């Protein structure tokens, strides 16, 4: 507990970078230029060589590619492809032009590598200083093998976290920075800036916040529906899943496994298959309408407007989302429900509470307490719930001819339409960023206030 209360620095160490620079000896100071020298001097030869090799590799990379990549970043390339007529061969020949998208990506990657190199530099300096201090104090300086052994024990996190981190940096963080950068360019089909594009600053944000533009007005209405959708989709699933879970887990319910299996079965069918089939079934001439007509529930030429009336469509997608989501909720909640302390129920029963009261007074508060993080992640998951909307309604119906988004379009499906169908990459990125900001503020705020966060990690 003691460690956790010190908020300022949980892991104090004398071997900081600043100390290394101010108090370090000659060999440590030399390490600032020639990484690893300090380690080599103090006997950590392999470690020192690795640092040195990293530096050499970095410099080689920068000379070979990095510097030019970064230098191209401000202009994003300007050389156009050229066409030359070859009279002898009767063909046009083409020179290679710049491709802004690659320049942007490689530039960012080079910057990222530079940043990682800076981290390595700090590490090497610290390590050199540490080796120097230990040597001065006459304490044991770890050999390389001993260093490797610490990876299995006190530095286990380095061993276990590094491989996943590499992948996260390469496949999540790098693309993300790339996407954020696109929002500040004119990378879009408009005026054909698909090969060569430039930085335009906050131009795209301005358009979006200009409520007189088509884009601006669409944005707010889509955002509104996205939040409504996320709220209903999350809580309808949650409550419905909990009720079903309670019904199955009642002491007197028979064949628990069978019921559970019935619900869970729908997880086994790939989501895009079941959603596409639902979509077909719910069309004006689809199976459901045909069935209702045959049963005489609706007139023989009528059909229920599942995806053709705005309100119907919105309710339909929420209902179908229940079908899709409840099995997962069921699985997640069953365990938690079983963990509710039995004494709570006993006490309530003694007080003469009925089933409904017990649910609202005990089950629900307990569940909310335990599952807040889960709820938040479901909520954000629903804001970005691409599959259900895209495969089910495709954003339909559209009531405003000019709008690029329909009545059930979420920000994320609208973003998809704008980027993939219309190729307005910059606008898509802007929407992605705004969605993120809204979500991040909400989620971090709620999450930090939740009890499960505050109590987390206290030993």
């Amino acid at each position: 507990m003691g460690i956790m209360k010190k908020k300022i620095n949980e892991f104090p160490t004398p071997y900081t970078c600043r100390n290394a620079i101010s108090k370090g000896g000659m060999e440590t100071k030399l390490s600032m230029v020639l990484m690893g020298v300090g380690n080599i001097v103090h006997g950590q030869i392999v470690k020192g060589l690795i640092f040195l090799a990293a530096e050499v590799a970095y410099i080689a990379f920068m000379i070979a590619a990095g510097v030019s990549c970064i230098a191209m970043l401000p202009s994003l390339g300007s050389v156009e492809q050229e066409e030359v007529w070859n009279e002898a061969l009767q063909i046009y020949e083409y020179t290679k032009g710049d491709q802004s998208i690659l320049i942007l990506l490689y530039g960012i990657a080079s910057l990222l590598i530079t940043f990682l190199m800076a981290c390595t530099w700090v590490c090497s300096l610290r390590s050199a200083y540490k080796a120097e201090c230990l040597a001065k104090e006459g304490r044991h300086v770890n050999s390389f093998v001993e260093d490797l052994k610490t990876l299995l024990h006190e530095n286990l996190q380095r061993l276990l976290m590094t491989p996943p981190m590499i992948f996260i940096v390469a496949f999540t963080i790098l693309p993300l920075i790339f996407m954020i950068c696109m929002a500040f360019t004119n990378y879009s089909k408009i005026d054909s800036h698909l090969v060569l594009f430039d930085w335009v600053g906050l131009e795209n944000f301005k358009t979006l916040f200009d409520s007189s533009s088509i884009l601006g007005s669409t944005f707010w209405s889509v955002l509104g529906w996205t939040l409504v959708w996320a709220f209903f989709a999350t809580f309808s699933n949650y409550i419905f899943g909990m009720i079903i879970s309670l019904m199955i887990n009642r002491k007197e319910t028979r064949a628990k496994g069978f019921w559970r299996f019935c619900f869970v079965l729908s997880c086994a069918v790939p989501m895009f298959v079941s959603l596409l089939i639902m979509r077909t079934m719910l069309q004006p001439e689809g199976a459901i309408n045909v069935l209702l007509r045959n049963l005489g529930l609706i007139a023989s030429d009528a059909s229920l407007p599942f995806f053709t009336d705005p309100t119907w469509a919105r309710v339909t997608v929420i209902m179908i989302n229940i079908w899709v989501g409840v099995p997962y909720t069921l699985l997640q909640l069953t365990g938690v429900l079983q963990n509710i302390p039995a004494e709570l129920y006993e006490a309530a029963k003694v007080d003469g509470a009925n089933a409904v009261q017990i649910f609202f007074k005990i089950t629900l508060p307990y569940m909310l307490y335990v599952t807040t993080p889960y709820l938040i992640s479901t909520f954000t998951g629903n804001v970005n719930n691409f599959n259900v909307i895209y495969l089910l309604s495709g954003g339909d119906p559209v009531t405003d001819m000019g709008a690029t988004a329909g009545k059930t379009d979420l920000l994320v499906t609208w973003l998809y339409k704008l980027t993939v169908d219309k190729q307005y990459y910059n606008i898509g990125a802007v929407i992605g960023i705004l969605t993120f900001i809204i979500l991040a503020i909400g989620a971090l705020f709620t999450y930090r206030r939740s009890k499960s966060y505050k109590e987390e990690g206290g030993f």
Partner: protein
Amino acid sequence: MMRKRAVSLLLAGVMTLGLAAGGLTGCGSSGNDGAEKVRLMVWSPSEDQSKDSGEWLQTCCEAFADAHPEWDITFVYGVMDEASAGEQVAQDPDASADVFMYANNSLEPMRNADALVRFGGKYRKQIEATNSQDVLDTLIMDDNLYGIPFTTNLWYMYYDKSVFSEKDIKNLDTMLEKGVVSFPFVNSWYLPAFYIGNGCTLFGEDGKDEAAGVDFGGENAVEVTNYLIDLAQNPNFKIDDLGSGIAGFRDGSINAMFSGSWDSNAVKEALGDNMGVAALPTYTLNGEEKQMYAYAGTKAIGVNTHSDYMVQAIELAIWLGNAESQRLHYELRQVVPCNTELLQEEDIQKDELVMAQNTTFSDTSIIQPLVNQMNNCWTPVENMGKGIRNGSVTHENAQEQTEQMNEAMNSDGIS
């Protein structure tokens, strides 16, 4: 960072090994000495490469290699249908095929990506000699020719001969009195046919004048909207969506539908000898007969500007689009040819499908505009179709909604 480098080094190592292995096997197959080594990547739909439908692509490529002993060609085949080729080539021309087949509506995206080779000199003359100007126009932008057409790509009418006579099929409204007609009402590739029939235009007369904009507004467009509202309510009119048209052919509930060559086998199966194919009918608007006009396009063979073997790639493209290749394509996969010499041949003249497709192309279609702004024209028309189906577009607001559609078609949806 080091680890990352190590990973990429390792990967590079793996790659080199793989390439070396590939190179070795490649060497084994090469026969004649002194010939220039050429590696050509070719993309086509999977049917062109499958054994069941006769390996059209392989046959043609091998014939090409035999005809050019001066080159030692290694072919690399990739599967890419014409509809997606444009998108994929435009996304990363550098890693795309040297020679590929594409639907001409993706011409502009690929041109924007600097990916399409333009044909000039003797090659252009060769292409022009065997194709009609209408067909060539679908591949010409700013007077530059960007592909070798091998088939037309458009929709026309399938009908049940036992329900409609040759005379009936001239007019849609006559047909609706005699049988059930299904039309892809909510698909914006089809719906404009009615508007264009009543004088609406896209990007000027030839569809290439971006500044002229779209004219889908005004009195004539509103008339069409009103006609369409009535049409959607006609009990004999069914909206074809998600395959309901072809299903209706099977169970006999639908007697005519609008589609293209991709459905011909299914229709043949459903209707047998009663299958009829025809160009688009007219429709009766306020007592006057108006012709429906389909968007017409072509499928063509294109060459990548990033190709390392430009001459060979162009020669191969010309080869794949010549009369023999088109004939083989027709025989193996019933791909309707567009080579003018081939179309004169007797057996092809007799084919109803070929004739319907080509009559539609020459008489009842307009060239689908290729300009960039065409990108803005799909969603609004689709919204109009859906609006009419859903009942949100009515006679009362037809005027206003049509104007809105027109405005949207002329806007990029941003400002």
